[in-house]
């Protein structure tokens, strides 16, 4: 290498050192947002109250060692609020690891989810696999809770959803991409889990059913379980058959469900569901008496309960199952068929075809 080239190389390498003063944002110069909440502030000029939970990282991960700070600001829009929040923190906000977005119950009731979704789906650093939920009574209380069992900030809420940590059949899991899809799909409406603070933990055992913008119906925990089983086919659930002195409980280990529309111009909405499991609680020697009779009884009871819930959902005017989408997909999409379906759906009959199969009593004789 000639001297000149060597020199120019050295100069270039020395220039590299100056880069340290540039806008190279290392990981330690970023604040990781672990959960974000959007509330309605009741101030018409600044309707959005944005709450961010920021993680304080530590190199040691241990139970209860999670440290975080919560920042709140009111602004005219979420985007403005986040910009404003930057002025109150010393590092760059990083949404890359934010997987929990909580929408306040009041915000959903008054403003709807549409505006929040705009911001969420446009930011490039927000992951589409984020969990969406409704905060009851508000998002602030859910976001600012710091459970003692957390190993690192935001972990507890994140583990509640999907199959990450606990696999609760009461918890509806809705990802951002799915919510976005349901927001724009004709004939398929969004459903969101409802999270609230219960002692030093989160309680996520209800679901909210929305039309394209606002919440129409809040299901109670029992209905949420039925909804989760029929709409999403979640495993590891239970079916209860009331009995004296103790209820008969089937622990379902496998569960598959599908929807269908039967009949031409006057369709019947059919929900097929197959449930397999073993008896977790029953009087002794029940299975020997009438195995298939018990299966039928459980299926019938389950179908009745599910149908009651389905009619409730129908009467609320929402369609989280996607019957409408199914109707449009099945038929020639002539003009006015969507209007026709809307009038049909108001009066539609449901038929839940449940098939329960009991694998055993769980006992070895």
């Amino acid at each position, binding site marked *: 290498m000639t001297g000149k080239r060597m020199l120019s190389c050295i100069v270039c390498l020395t220039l590299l050192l100056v880069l340290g003063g540039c806008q190279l944002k290392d*990981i*330690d110069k970023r604040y990781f947002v672990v959960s974000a909440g959007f509330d309605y502030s009741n101030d018409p000029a600044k309707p959005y109250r944005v709450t961010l939970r920021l993680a304080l990282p530590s*190199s040691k991960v241990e139970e209860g060692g999670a440290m975080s700070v919560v920042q709140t600001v009111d602004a005219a829009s979420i985007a403005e609020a986040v910009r404003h929040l930057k002025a109150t923190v010393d590092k760059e906000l990083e949404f890359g690891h934010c997987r929990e977005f909580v929408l306040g119950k009041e915000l959903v009731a008054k403003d709807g989810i549409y505006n929040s979704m705009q911001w969420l789906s446009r930011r490039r650093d927000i992951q589409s696999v984020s969990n969406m939920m409704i905060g009851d009574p508000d998002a602030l209380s859910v976001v600012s809770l710091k459970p003692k069992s957390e190993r690192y900030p935001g972990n507890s809420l994140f583990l509640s959803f999907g199959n990450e940590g606990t696999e609760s059949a009461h918890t509806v899991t809705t990802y951002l991409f799915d919510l976005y899809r349901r927001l724009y799909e004709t004939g398929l409406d969004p459903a969101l889990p409802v999270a609230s603070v219960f002692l030093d933990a989160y309680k996520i055992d209800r679901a909210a059913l929305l039309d394209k913008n606002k919440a129409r119906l809040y299901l109670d925990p029992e209905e949420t379980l039925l909804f989760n089983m029929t709409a999403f086919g979640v495993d590891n659930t239970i079916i209860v058959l009331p009995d004296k002195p103790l209820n008969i409980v089937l622990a379902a280990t496998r569960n598959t469900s599908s929807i269908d529309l039967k009949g031409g111009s006057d369709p019947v909405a059919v929900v097929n569901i197959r449930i397999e499991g073993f008896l977790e609680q029953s009087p002794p020697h029940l299975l020997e008496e009438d195995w298939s009779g018990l299966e039928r009884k459980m299926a019938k009871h389950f179908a009745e309960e599910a149908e009651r819930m389905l009619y409730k959902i129908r009467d609320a005017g929402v369609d989280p199952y996607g019957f409408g989408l199914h109707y449009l997909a099945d038929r020639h999409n002539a003009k006015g068929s969507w209007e026709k379906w809307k009038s049909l759906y108001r009066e539609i009959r449901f038929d839940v075809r449940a098939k329960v199969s009991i694998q055993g009593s769980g006992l070895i004789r």
Partner: protein
Amino acid sequence: MIEAIQDQLGNPSDFTAETMDNGYAKMQICFFPGMCDMDQLKDAVIVPFSYRFDPDEFRRMLHTSVAFMKDVPANHLADYLLKGYVILGYEGEVFVFRAIRRMQTAPDQTQVEASLQGPQSAFTENLDLNLTLVRTLYNVPDLSVENYEPGNLSKSKIVLLYDRTKCNDATLKEVRKRLENLDHGLLLSAGQLAKHLSQAKYRLFPITQLTERPDRLSMHINKGKLAVLMDGSRFAILLPVHFFDFMYAMDDHYEPSWMSNFMLGLRYISMLLTLTLPALYISIVSYNPEVFRVQLAFTIDGSRAAVPYPSFIEVLLMLFMIEVLIEASLRLPRAVGSTAATVGGLILGQAAQQAGLVSSVMIIVTSVVAISNFVIPNTTFSYFIRILKYGFVAVAVFAGLVGVVVALFMMVVYLCNMRSFGEPYFALFQSKARVAGSKNR
């Protein structure tokens, strides 16, 4: 005759030139005692000339024995002397007698390409012995051996080996041409020769392979390729080679295939790791922290809290340290080598992290990079990878993860474009059709 030679050599003190007289006849003899095998000289020349002298027999011996060369041009005599030949002047005629002192008589132990269960013998610095080793392993009449003597200062003998029936004519012609045009001041080792043969100076990957193992060379020749041996070097040059040849250790052919396939996979993963890990560290820490799990993000964040400099300075610092360490342990005498490793690896690494100069994750990255680099079976190739790593680091500093991905893509494109003596370098499958075609030509 003696005077002429002495004039040409400048009468050095390690040179012997005598006129021997046994009472019946006189013989002029000159040689370098240090370069000649004295026992051979005594048995073949001194004894017949002195104790058992018979003029007729002696004359007949000089004229008929294959060991004595006659009619050597006078201007080449000095060259022969310098190679360890003995020059005899008898009855007005000049004879050249081959009595080169052989330093080595047994094959070396493998040192660079160690094998667990394969042959342990390696090439030596003696060309004749090396040829013997090859002939023993590749015992077919089709093995061709061509001699080349470049007109340079060291005049080391160079030998081109190939299988006549299998080799590719185009490649053979090209290599012959390059060997004939060799002209360089001092040619000291096979590595240097390989550099001259491959011509382009700033290539990113080697297109010849150096090996010390005769079994590797035999296998290479059996595939229809060429090998170059050089006197005075215990490494053979294999050419043309493919990218994937470098990742094979000879053990792969001797071990059960489950094991060798697993090891092969391990090596490719290691190569990718050593190539990209520092760059990935920079790009993830400085550009895309959302890539890995949130736990790891927090851990790195926490461990980097004390580090004052941006990630790439941290990386360059640690890479510098590890390179210095490797170089030092290579150059140091064996006895001190382990001390260097202990001081550098244990104390420096631990202390650098505790002093807050580098993060603990960076220490792991550095060690993984260093260790996986040694997994690559070929030293030359691992050198190239070691250097290439800095290219990736530079790209990562400016362009982050996207840059690393684009650089990887460009590397693959570059590899696809490369040719090793006319053969595609990155070819996954050897073109059987072409080899067969060359046989028919």
